Each structure stands twice: as C-alpha cells, then as structure tokens.
C-alpha cells in the first residue's frame, strides 16, 4: 500500500464553501453556508450538537437533603445547569485521566449549602452554587440574574450537596450539548422536492413560505423539475445554552471535525508504515 500525499482540491475565495453571517447575539449566530454539499453542512450541524465538549455536573453527593424533592430529581436538575465552558479545552475527559475517582485535571467541584430560615419559601438558584474554580461558573442570563431555579425550601429545610462537574459531549448526555438547538434549513421553496406533501389540496396555500424564501428565487409555474439539482445553500441558526459563545461553538465544531479526520489519517498512515511504506506527514497541523 503506497500512500502518496497529494491534495486534489484547493479552496479559493470564489471556489470553496462560502459563509455569510447574518446576525450575532450573545446566545445565537445566524449564518448561511453555501457552495458546499449537504453532507458537509450536516456534519457541521451534527458536530455542533453532539461533539463540542462542555462542562456539566455529572456526579452529585448529597450530604443533607430535607427538601421535598428526591435526591435524584435534584441531581438531574443540577446536571442540566449550563456552566461556562471556556476551560473545557484545558480539562481532561474522565477516560483520559488516570485519577480515581476524580482530580483537578478532569473535574471542577461545586458545592451548595442552603437552609431556609424564613417563614416564606426560599428559592435556591444556580447562583448559590460555589465553584472551586473561578473560571468555571454557572452561566447566568443577564435578563435573569438569579440564574436557574434548582429547588424551593420551606422553613427548616436544608440542602447540602457536593457536585462534581466534568467535561463531556452531547453524544454521551444532552446536558453536555452546547446548543439548545441548531436551526438548519435549505431549499425554502422545496424545488428539490425533498419534502413530499401528503394530503394537501394546494400546498402553496396551506404552507406559509419560510422566512428564508426571500433569499432564493421562487420557482416559475412552468419550470420543469430539475432532478439533478443539489442543495447548496444552508441556513443555520445556532443557539447556545450559554456554556460557550455561539461563534465559538461553530469554530470548535470545525476543529473537532478536523481532529476526527486527522485521527483516522494518522491510523491509516500507521498501517501503511507497518506494511513498509514511507510515512507521509500530513500537511495540516492540529
């Protein structure tokens, strides 16, 4: 097996995939990816949802829980709290770490120690969590500065927990997904007929046009069906949970995708080397 390195494609400003950013807010980014294949756009979407690492509470130790809520119920709520995850790149995954059961290299400790002294019910928010690392804090939405409601306590009730937050990805558990959702749309006029209608009498009347429809020319009534046409403009809106800024989710997703490919490339090169072929170094650096 002889593996020669020669890249067959080069991407120029005009020839390769293009991006037009429409809007950036603190939690969302809206952009159009064009001049590429559905499989590439879908790979980006899938990586953003499932493979961009974030930090989330994973192991919860209840020292005292006299609230009306069950331990596992609170543990689940703690897991779903978005935690600012810029530090995730510096943290080990649990399986990468040799420690047992956890250490500073692979985890962040949160503690919560609250008791209700007042006659009124007390609300416990994510801002009550105390982190062992100043750089790793629960995300707080500016519009809701108390954070996420965890539990409510009546007079005399107490909640004292130690929670271990770890690095993970959305494919292990959705609590690690950095986005609440990725809106993904192409072909707003359904020219490609990827959407098949069922029992509509007049689809044009019954289905409102997408907001993206203004971006592409509407089909003429006498236009024949182009069975060779392929989708090439993809409308993305990435909405972040707050764990990572939305533009960072996109850049990290592309980085994760490249690392996956580089890993397969490296192993393929290793097999070639074992069979006596010269090693070809990849041209890219990761």
């Amino acid at each position, binding site marked *: *097996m*002889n*593996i*020669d*390195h020669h*890249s*067959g*494609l*080069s*991407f120029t400003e005009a020839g*390769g*995939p293009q*991006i*037009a*950013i*429409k*809007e*950036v*807010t*603190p939690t969302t980014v809206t952009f159009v*990816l064009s001049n*590429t*294949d559905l*499989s*590439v756009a*879908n*790979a*980006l979407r*899938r*990586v953003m949802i499932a493979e961009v690492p974030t930090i989330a509470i994973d*192991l919860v*130790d209840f020292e005292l829980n006299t609230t009306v809520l069950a331990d596992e119920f609170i543990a689940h709520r703690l897991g779903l709290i978005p935690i600012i995850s810029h530090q995730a790149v510096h943290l080990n995954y*649990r*399986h990468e770490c040799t420690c*047992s*059961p956890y250490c500073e290299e692979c985890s962040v400790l949160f503690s919560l120690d609250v008791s209700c002294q007042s006659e009124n019910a007390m609300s416990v928010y994510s801002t009550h969590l105390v982190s062992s690392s100043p750089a790793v804090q629960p995300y707080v939405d*500016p*519009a809701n500065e108390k954070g996420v409601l965890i539990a409510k306590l009546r007079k005399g009730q107490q909640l004292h927990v130690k929670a271990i937050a770890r690095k993970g990805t959305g*494919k*292990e*558990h959705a609590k690690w997904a950095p986005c609440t959702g990725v809106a993904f749309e192409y072909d707003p006029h359904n020219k490609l007929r990827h959407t098949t209608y069922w029992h509509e009498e007049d689809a044009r009347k019954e289905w409102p046009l997408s907001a993206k429809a203004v971006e592409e020319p509407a089909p003429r009534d006498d236009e024949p069906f182009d069975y060779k046409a392929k989708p090439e403009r993809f409308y993305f809106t990435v909405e972040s949970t707050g764990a990572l800024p939305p*533009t960072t989710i*996109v*850049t990290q997703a*592309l*980085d994760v*995708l*490249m690392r*996956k*490919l*580089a*890993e*397969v*490339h490296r*192993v*393929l*090169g290793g*097999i070639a080397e074992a069979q006596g072929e010269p090693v070809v170094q990849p*041209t*890219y650096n990761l």
Partner: protein
Amino acid sequence: MSMIEPVEDTHGFPFTEGATKFEIIPTDAADPSSATFVVHDEDHTLGNSLRFMVMKNPAVSFCGYSIPHPSEFKIHMRIQTDGSITAAQALNQGLDDLVALSEHVLATFEAKVAAKGDYETRDI
C-alpha cells in the same frame, strides 16, 4: 462522606478505549483497488461527509458507507477505484481534502466573524 463513583460509570456511552480505531478488510488480497475500511467510534458525521469527499475523486468509481448495526459504534466504508490509485490512497486523499475543506470553512467563518459591521448584532 466520600464520593463514590457509580459502578456503571459509562452511562452507556459506547466509548471503546484502547480498541482499534481502524481496520482494513481487503475484498481481494491481489487487488488493492477495492477495500472496506472499518472506522470505530464514528458515525454519519464522518461517514457521509467523507463518502462525499472520496466520491469527488474522479479515480473513484464507488464509495459508500454503512453502519452495520445500530448498537455497534462503527462504520464500514467501501471504496472501489478505477485502478489508477489504490483504495487506501483514495481514502487518504479524501481525508486530506475534507480537512482542507474544514480548514477553509473555519478560516472563512473566523474572518467573517471578525468583520464586524457586515452583520447585525443584538445584545439580547
């Protein structure tokens, strides 16, 4: 109270540590133009985009992938070339091309984000 790790600590995540990442199943030992590549711990994310990239190569006559069983976390990628290159070379080039494409998208995205003023921003 000490923190005790749950016994079943993988959460069912199909991570196979230390397992082989990659295998080659030759369809015919004498014919390197055709092979099935098994990539472990990968799914449609890599499979479909890599299939597209390998198919772009004019020397490749067939490239397809499948996930043979939903509870086994691996893909099978079958490549058949016209004989001018080996299947492994076609895969290698597909990997390189897809990395180049991802790099291009990343660089383009970063440049567009840096060009503030070309897009709308809202605080909430």
